[in-house]
């Protein structure tokens, strides 16, 4: 997971990239003719100094290698922003950044 945070006048803009296939479960494997099983991130959360500031649920229509940008107000330099994600197979993803 890659996270970048940039401080603006009123907020910090956070940009997140997560490597994930986000497989829909609707595509066929051309070799076997079988459906490729769904594999996608379902839950994502952003925490600022251990407090949840943004909660998300995603479906299969979030694009492959998901990109997300959001804004955090009321932060100060040194605050720790953590992103946690969980996919439908129970695999978890984690990233963090110290705000400038």
């Amino acid at each position, binding site marked *: 997971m890659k996270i970048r945070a940039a401080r603006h006048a009123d*907020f910090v803009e956070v940009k997140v990239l997560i490597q994930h296939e*986000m497989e*829909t479960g*609707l*595509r*066929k494997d051309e070799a076997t003719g079988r459906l490729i099983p769904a594999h996608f991130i*379902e*839950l994502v*959360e*952003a925490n*600022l100094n251990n*407090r*949840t*500031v*943004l*909660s*998300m*649920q*995603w*479906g*299969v*229509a*979030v*694009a*492959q290698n*998901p*990109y*997300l*940008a*959001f*804004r*955090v*107000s*009321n*932060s100060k330099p040194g605050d720790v922003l953590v992103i*946690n994600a*969980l996919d439908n*197979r*129970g695999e*978890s993803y984690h990233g963090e950044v110290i705000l400038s």
Partner: protein
Amino acid sequence: MRSSTATLGLLGLLYSRLACAFSLVWNENAFGSTTASAAIEAAGYGSAVDHPGLVLTAPELAENGAVVPIEVESRIPGTQSIALFVDANPNPMVAEFVFTADTPPYVSTRIKMASTSLVRVLAKTSSGVWQASQPVKVTLGGCGG
């Protein structure tokens, strides 16, 4: 057979333990709905009316439906959450974002569109549920196959 059932059970248990760390529960009904109206209802965003304070930025024409950039900002006071739907997708619900006092209601992401469709964004606010929408023309569908 028995061991694979046991493995599935263990995985299920592991998943539910991990999911407990998240404040939202994945809404299987809403994401599994096959029409926009059913998905919107199941997600709890029913009976929305258009509001100019809900701003959806999407391309008029997307050449590649696999990666369509979408940006949403709500200027409606007391906005608690925003949900995104693509009417013509096999499962119209795309995502829901629940904001707090520390996150102004803004989000930018990239979504998949199977074909040309209306893209809808709905916002839950202290004054009710509001909507904004825009048609997006897709040249090459994004669900492959």
